[in-house]
């Protein structure tokens, strides 16, 4: 069965871009506009992988990671952060919160797919 990936980003175009990319590789994609939205949507269906932006209104990516790890369903689910080069410290903070890895924006299509395959083979 195709894996379900939730893409969390406040930039709609970024969400769409990730969505196209993943959909083209046969994944099912669910979009969420921020951490709070993602939390709500993650209870409605089982998500196999989260890809989240860091800097978002309402709830940022790090807090989302923390909250997901606190939920029984997603304790071990891979969470990939979308970061920019200038967010080294955030990466560390994200890892401490329980993130699995990261993809650096701007990403190449192949890069994103490689990371998804890596954490969620």
């Amino acid at each position: 069965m195709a894996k379900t990936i939730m893409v969390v980003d406040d930039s709609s175009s970024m969400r769409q871009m990730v969505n196209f990319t993943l959909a083209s590789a046969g994944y099912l994609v669910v979009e969420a506009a921020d951490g709070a939205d993602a939390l709500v949507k993650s209870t409605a269906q089982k998500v196999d992988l989260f890809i989240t932006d860091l800097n978002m209104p309402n709830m940022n990516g790090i807090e989302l990671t923390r909250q997901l790890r606190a939920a029984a369903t997603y304790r071990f689910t891979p969470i990939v952060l979308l970061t920019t080069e200038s967010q080294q410290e955030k990466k560390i903070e994200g890892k401490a919160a329980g993130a699995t890895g990261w993809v650096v924006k701007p990403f190449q299509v192949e890069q994103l797919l490689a990371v998804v395959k890596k954490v969620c083979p």
Partner: protein
Amino acid sequence: MDIAALQLKMRDAFRVEATDLLAELDSSMLELESRPQDADLLNRVFRAIHTIKGSGATAGFNEMAAFTHHVEELFDEARMGRLIITHEMIDLALQAKDLIGQLLESGNPAELESTCTQVVEALARFLPQSGRPVSKSQAKAGCTPPQRQRHKIFFKPHAQVFFSGTDPINLVDELCTLGDAKVTAQIEGIPSLENLNPEQCYLAWNVELVSSQPIAKIKEVFLFVEDESEIKIESRLEPAPGETAKADPLADFLNIAGQSLLALDGFLSHLRASKESDRDCCKNYLRILKTFQAAAHRQNQKEAAALLEEQIHLLEVAITSGVILPEETKVQLEEGYQKLATLIQSLREQNQGGSKLENPAILQPDVSTVASAAEGSKKEVVRVAASIRVDQDKLDRLIQSAGELLVARNAFPLLAKKLALEHGLSGMGKEVKDAGDHISRIAEDLQAAVMSIRMMPIRTVFQRFPRMVRDIGRAQGKEVELLLEGEDTELDKTVIEQIADPLVHLVRNAADHGVESPDVREQAGKTRTGKVTLKAYNQANNVVIEVVDDGRGMDPTRLKQKAVEKGLITASAAEAMDDRSALELIFLPGLSTAEQVTGISGRGVGMDVVRSNIRQLHGTTTIESKLGFGSKITITLPASLMVSKGILVEAKGEEYVFPIDSVVQMVRLPNERIHSHAQSHFATFRNEVFPLLRLADHFACASQFSEASWPAEVPLAIVQTNRGRIGVAVDRFIGQVEVIVKPMGREFAEIAAFQGTTIMGDGRVALVINPAGFI
């Protein structure tokens, strides 16, 4: 889907969002100008720019992203409190923002390169040191030529590795894809079953990998776990046996120590739990201690070796004596373990920074980057509405259907009546009517919900004006303040789209022509800063937009002169014209009162276009002005173009619909209240006198005055037009109806008397009257 097609889709998606973001930037940067240290605002601006850069680069707008990076830097500095935003910076940032828009649209971004460079240079002057490295990419791990190498890889994930969502076995599998691999798991760390926590990782792996992949590729496998895992990679060229690659001996020792400690911990907890001391278990423990000690000796870790010696001694005694482990010994073992753990921990800290991987560059955090502290943790004040973009056609189809449903429900009362009267089924008739009422209510809800989809706050139009007014002010040396009111007033999307251009024109006029220069204002006893107010509000089913300035106002006499000079009206017509009508002259094509044509306005094209644009939206434009005090232009628009309520009337056997919001009152007026004077009819009602016209005559031959007698009671619709109330006499009121007004075809666009047509519940067509057309 191939990657090129994907890129194309990405670019489209990005353009749509970028347009929104740029518009938001416009207004938020201006707000920032007045509150340069507002952290929330700075964050908002930064975030928008950041998204444009990040998403843009992903979508393939490389030039744009590279350029945006510089703008982002400026606001990042400000956000971090390292610089304070000034007017000059906002000027530059706005210019940069415009450039970003152009870069997005331009098919050939190289054309804009020189402009971009100028802006970048200007931006650089504001930044603390312009020597900041632009490229932050880390040095790529050295590209080893593709030689076949044998790698000995040791990988011990952190015990809590599962909680980072990583399944270490995936990484081992990934290693195997890189070449020929031999994997052995180290299972020594696994405790006995009762002590086993299934959510912890006790395993480590040794992988012997023969691969021609560069070492960077292998390290990449561990990219996400390298910080908290123990990873050792020893590589040597495959054909050259012998030499072991040099490894960090201390790290080596620490690795063994770490593993041993984990095993010992498992053993101790086992001891604590059981009364019996398991002989095998103790032997196992002893073996681990010995390995550990040997490693300590090799590394010359005397302290550790001594501690271990003690433990080994204790345990050996216990095993040889063959009795139950005395409590005392257990305690000693525990203490010894604690000491060891502390010692190893301190050694580990000393060793910090020592490389676990061979290329330390990979581990080094990028020092040139700026921390984004505390961002995002603050609650964002601006509400971001979650939204879906829907194809407009789909939406229109939905709206059309919902509207038709509303009209179709009108058939129920008719059916009910028919059943009752023609078939004598009054009970059945009532049931049909009830069912109809129910459907009717649902249809109304549906209608309201669907219509609200099309409604958009006028904010989207208003938000461009602060920037525009500011630019005009700066360009002309005027001080103009723009006040916005009622930005949340909602209008149909079509109206929003089409009202923008006329409004731009009006606001421009107000700021450019209306508001005087500060000195002139001062002489006239006004404040130096001129005020332009843009206001929107609801009035009945309409939305009213006012553009008000407190500038010089318009001179009706001069307008008349101008119009005569340009041959737009005759001198005698001008003579007869009152001030109010004179002001209306401004809407004539080709009339401009500006003495000097500026770059912004004053070419005399526009006001006529403004009025005709607004007419197309079934709106009206009125003007008020007082010389020396300013002008006010009022636009009245129907909030929604689609469905509305109407009053169905009959005149000379034809049915017409009055839009309900135009009808003030419906009365049956005794005919003695109707007077005729100078070829016109008038009616008096509630002490008011208003002009009266007969609908039938009006449409039959509009100019003719009919003396035909009035019935004893005249059904009269009192209608509000923008020139006051008038009475419209009809033959009969039929009732209230829901109508979807469909605009008449192009051929009839000139007919001002009707808004359009509508289809009635029984399928007949009726004309919908445009009250403004009565004048």
